[in-house]
């Protein structure tokens, strides 16, 4: 008989999230599954650069450190399984390193990878076969930027992860998958749901959406932040699912933060378009269908999720080279700080113009005076201002020149210049984002596994 409940905890909401969180969550969470999410929209382009420099790289290396720390716990909590998209562009190398770590700790586990999301190796075949991969906003075909494309991945769904679990995997490493599918997969596998059971798939998708950003549902970012206790020890979220699709959002006992109707509904709309039609590869989930109820002492029950059939397409996230970017900061203090900062920004621009090196785009922000969201905050005249100047150009050389114009303000600018100790700001390559759709039938997935 299928178990009545399933506990899925998410210990990582992005690459760079709190390094102790997965460890505390496993120690205190009584989890069946731990998920770890590493891939933001543009992470793949950074991984592409790393793989270009070293073919053994191209995955979220932080995961290996987390895995090392989890190994001693995994020896005690034997039922635990781990699903992560840390594989990035190179799940194969990631799994190889993971197996070394498991082996070093004497853990006997089955490690599986999911492949097939990476379109780059057959991108030209796809374009030739009549898949335009047109930009979702502009309608332009991908051929317009094809020579500059550095990565192109579909967001896979839960199906290949369930296949890996069916083959006995304890650790599943994927590349690009829809974040919510990391939670949908263990639910489908545990409860044996059909792939046409749209309401239950929607329920698990909503659960996955709620926990995918880690502490954002347990008190992080919450509007009424003074009400949130002990954010320093915020508990990472657990979705406790039932076979009928009802679920609870919880956090470990004795952890900080809080799970209330308000923290849950704030996160429900996070990075969402039409809440009645949240599209993933698995289902189209209706966020407006659910009913929330509070649980004592800390938790929320979510019921009555409704879903509609999945679409025939995968979302594709591609990235292409788009010039160079450089941003530097300097602090102006004392009276008239804003006016002095404005003078500094003008000086840099004039000097670049005189040198025939003005970048194509140049932007100055006066942070502290209300420029983070221009035109909205009340204008103020503080006694200290961070001047942030940023430039873009298609030529790297122009930005190298730009980077050299900030330091001279220390001696030739107005009085009260300080805070320039970090040296010349770095020039970095820009990768622009290209969202598209691709027929599901054009994508083949593959599972590989090994035992340690």
């Amino acid at each position, binding site marked *: 008989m299928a178990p009545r409940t399933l506990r899925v905890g998410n210990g990582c909401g992005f690459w760079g999230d709190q390094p102790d969180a997965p460890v505390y969550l496993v120690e205190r969470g009584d989890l069946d599954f731990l998920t770890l999410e590493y891939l*933001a*929209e*543009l992470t793949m*382009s950074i991984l592409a650069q790393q793989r270009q420099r070293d073919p053994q790289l191209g995955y979220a290396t932080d995961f290996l450190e987390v895995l090392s720390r989890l190994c001693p716990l995994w020896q005690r909590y034997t039922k635990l399984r781990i699903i992560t998209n840390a594989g990035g562009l190179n799940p194969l190398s990631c799994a190889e390193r993971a197996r070394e770590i498991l082996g070093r700790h004497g853990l006997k586990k089955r490690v599986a990878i999911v492949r097939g999301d990476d379109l780059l190796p057959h991108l030209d075949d796809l374009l030739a076969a009549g898949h335009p991969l047109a930009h979702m*906003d502009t309608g332009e075909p991908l051929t317009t930027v094809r020579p500059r494309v550095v990565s192109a991945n579909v967001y896979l769904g839960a199906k290949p992860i369930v296949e890996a679990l069916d083959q006995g995997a304890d650790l599943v490493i994927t590349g690009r998958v829809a974040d919510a599918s990391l939670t949908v997969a263990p639910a489908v596998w545990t409860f044996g749901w059909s792939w046409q059971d749209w309401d239950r798939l929607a329920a698990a998708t909503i659960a996955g959406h709620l926990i995918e950003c880690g502490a954002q549902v347990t008190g992080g*970012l*919450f*509007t*009424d932040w003074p009400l949130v206790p002990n954010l320093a020890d915020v508990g990472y979220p657990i979705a406790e699912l039932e076979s009928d699709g009802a679920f609870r959002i919880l956090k470990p006992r004795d952890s900080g933060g809080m799970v209330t109707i*308000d923290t849950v*509904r*704030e*996160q*429900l*709309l*996070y*990075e*969402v*378009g*039409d*809440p*009645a039609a949240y599209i993933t590869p698995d289902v189209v989930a209706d*966020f*407006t*269908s*659910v*009913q*929330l109820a509070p649980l004592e002492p800390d938790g929320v029950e979510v019921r009555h999720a409704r879903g509609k059939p999945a679409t025939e397409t995968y979302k594709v996230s591609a*990235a292409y080279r*788009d010039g160079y*970017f450089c*941003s530097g900061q300097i602090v102006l203090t004392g009276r008239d700080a804003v006016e002095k900062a404005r003078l500094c920004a003008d000086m840099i621009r004039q000097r670049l113009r005189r040198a025939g090196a003005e970048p194509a*785009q140049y*932007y100055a*922000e006066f*942070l502290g005076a209300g*420029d*983070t*969201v*221009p*035109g*909205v*905050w009340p204008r103020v005249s503080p006694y200290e201002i961070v001047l*942030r100047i*940023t*430039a*873009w150009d298609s030529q790297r050389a122009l930005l190298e020149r730009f980077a050299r114009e900030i330091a001279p303000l220390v001696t030739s600018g107005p009085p009260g210049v300080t805070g320039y100790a970090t040296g010349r700001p770095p020039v970095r390559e*820009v*990768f*622009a*984002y290209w*969202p598209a759709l691709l027929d599901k039938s054009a994508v083949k997935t593959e599972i590989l596994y090994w035992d340690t």
Partner: protein
Amino acid sequence: MRLYELALARSGDKGNHANIGVLARSAEAYSWLCHYLTAERVAEYFRYLEPRKVDRYLAPNIWGLNFVLYNVLAGGAARSLRLDSQGKALASALLEMAIEELPP
């Protein structure tokens, strides 16, 4: 009165677009905001960011109003020259919007 007194909010990005989820603090506040906090008003409030358009979606089950602001991130996470390239500050900005008193 500021929107903050009537609602919670959270914002984030999708490529070059941003969304702001606004969650009313009560049923009365929700029906007032459905009437008052229109897509046009939000577009006007953020006019310096030059949104191509603003769509509003309602989620009555959570007293929610979701605003999608198109092309407000000046290129999005990697390409934008602005500090708030991911629209994270838009929610706290919207919560400072001056709102007419709730009708009695």
